[in-house]
């Protein structure tokens, strides 16, 4: 049923429909409304689930790790500093092959302290072995959570999934969302049946010491599964379409007016909506521009990106995070997709925008298209305020 609902409330609703047995979380802006709503549902008896209050994100991640290891479907959500504080547990979760799902309400990282949106938090956990899906709008955020459990819990996958949604812009944004019915969710997402679980009646050890004779193969196995995910995510999206009617194609990327485009922006998350708006405006004036939206950042769909962009003359990658001292996090992947290949865009320029909640306007996106010329640009910050970047050394 279509509802007018805040993003966070919609996420709480879909998590409820997924019937988790354990939720543990520590509140942090802008994730707070999600876990508040879930705690309320549990307290009101609407959701039969154990909600474990903890003193930190490290403990929240540890609780859901433990819960998942006992064979229970579990959920957590966090943002920013909270995600970083979870970091070592997140690597453990993927290493233990536990099919957890979490929401990352994307927010900037301190210092200086900043509660507003960018994607530095989840991007910084790029190598943690979690699948990362980025939502453009709240409908996608809802649907991706549902698909996340299907993907994570499949016996051929058994890896955790992080659904990333831009803090405030989506978490606090209210818009119409089609909320699936419980019956349909149950058909799409059957109860979780673990391959192995911690059970006193049938003792086993998880996460034991793997010495140099064994560790390398555990990482190889995860890397192989990430390759499988490039085929499995499209399969789950196909199933999702058959159950719910919404079509995300392969669920890895979305093409928007790319076919005959001379200039394409590559981006992730809610900014893709703003880019579509600009593309429509420029197309109406006869400009051949387009957007390639990356949905799955991990696994990164190199082959799809290559196929889609190989004949596009000019590509701009717009990152909402930085890898300080290196190329931008999405740009580096797009460039890698063409390394050593026969065909490639003549220009792949890289832009940074929206850090710490700096508003990305229609003008910001028009500027990116305007600066996408024959001259390749690397790491240009859009909407910089020159008056704030004077060097001062004091006495």
């Amino acid at each position, binding site marked *: 049923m279509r509802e007018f609902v805040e993003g966070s409330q919609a996420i709480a609703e879909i998590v409820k429909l997924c019937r988790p047995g354990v939720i543990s979380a520590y509140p942090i802006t802008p994730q707070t409304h999600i876990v508040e709503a879930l705690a309320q549902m549990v307290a009101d008896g609407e959701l039969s689930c154990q909600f474990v209050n903890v003193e930190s994100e490290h403990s929240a991640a540890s609780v859901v790790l433990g819960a998942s290891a006992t064979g229970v479907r579990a959920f957590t959500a966090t943002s920013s500093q909270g995600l970083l504080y979870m970091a070592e547990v997140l690597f453990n979760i993927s290493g233990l092959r536990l099919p957890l799902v979490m929401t990352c309400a994307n927010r900037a990282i301190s210092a200086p302290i900043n509660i507003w949106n960018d994607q530095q938090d989840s991007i910084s956990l790029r190598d943690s072995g979690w699948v990362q899906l980025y939502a453009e709008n709240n409908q996608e955020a809802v649907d991706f959570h549902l698909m996340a459990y299907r993907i994570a819990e499949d016996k051929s996958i058994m890896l955790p999934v992080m659904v990333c949604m831009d803090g405030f812009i989506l978490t606090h944004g*209210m818009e119409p969302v089609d909320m699936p019915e419980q019956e349909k969710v149950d058909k799409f997402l059957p109860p979780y049946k673990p391959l192995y679980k911690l059970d006193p009646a049938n003792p086993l050890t998880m996460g034991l010491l793997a010495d140099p004779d064994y560790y390398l193969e555990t990482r190889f196995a995860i890397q192989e599964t990430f390759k499988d995910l490039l085929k499995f995510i499209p399969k789950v999206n196909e199933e999702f379409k058959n159950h719910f009617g919404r079509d995300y194609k392969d669920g890895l990327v979305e093409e928007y007016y790319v076919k005959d485009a001379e200039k394409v922006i590559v981006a992730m998350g809610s900014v893709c909506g703003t880019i579509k708006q600009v593309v429509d405006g420029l197309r109406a004036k006869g400009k051949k521009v387009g957007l390639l939206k990356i949905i799955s950042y991990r696994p990164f769909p190199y082959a799809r990106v290559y196929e889609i962009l190989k004949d596009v003359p000019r590509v701009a990658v717009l990152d909402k995070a930085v890898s300080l001292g290196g190329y931008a996090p999405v740009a580096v992947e797009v460039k890698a997709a063409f390394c050593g290949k026969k065909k490639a865009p003549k220009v792949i320029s890289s832009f940074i925008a929206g850090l710490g909640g700096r508003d990305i306007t229609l003008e910001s996106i028009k500027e990116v298209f305007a600066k996408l010329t024959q001259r390749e640009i690397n790491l240009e910050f859009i909407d910089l305020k020159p008056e704030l970047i004077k060097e001062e050394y004091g006495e």
Partner: protein
Amino acid sequence: MKEIRIHARAGQGAITTAYLLGYAYFLKGMYPYAFPHFGAARMGAPMNAFVRVDSRPIRLRSQIYEPDYVLVVDPTLMRGFNCFSGLKEDGVVIINDKEGAEIPKLKAKQKVFLVPANDIAMRTIGRPLGNTALIGGFAAATGELDRDTLLEVVKKRFSGKAQEGNIQAIKEGYEYIKGVLK
């Protein structure tokens, strides 16, 4: 596409106001996107809430710089901010008339309406939360929304005494502007 910008202080109910307006548009079969932008993220700090609405899903995620409508929940903000920056040539402003707010000088086709929203709220709700009186005035001044749709939305959002008070506040805000327009 229509765009509404709300100026308030954190804690004055601007997000609820944006929600109520968005919900009312939703009931009309439109596609609203209502969202806040916080400044210092603490009670009393200036903040904005926004509503962008169209007949098809909203994709634009930026803040609103060229509003069709401006709602000023707290007129003391007009001292430090240009609450009317970027207002459309034929834009409409609704101001909560408390503490003798001064009517700003605007362009020829722009319209300003003062609603004694806090007085109405004190009478109807018992607290100085003028939001619902203000959106009642908004509906009357702009014709964007029906009064009855707003009442329906208030019934969904509030219950008990708060519902009664806010329903009355919307009616009084609406009637006040209808009276001014006569």
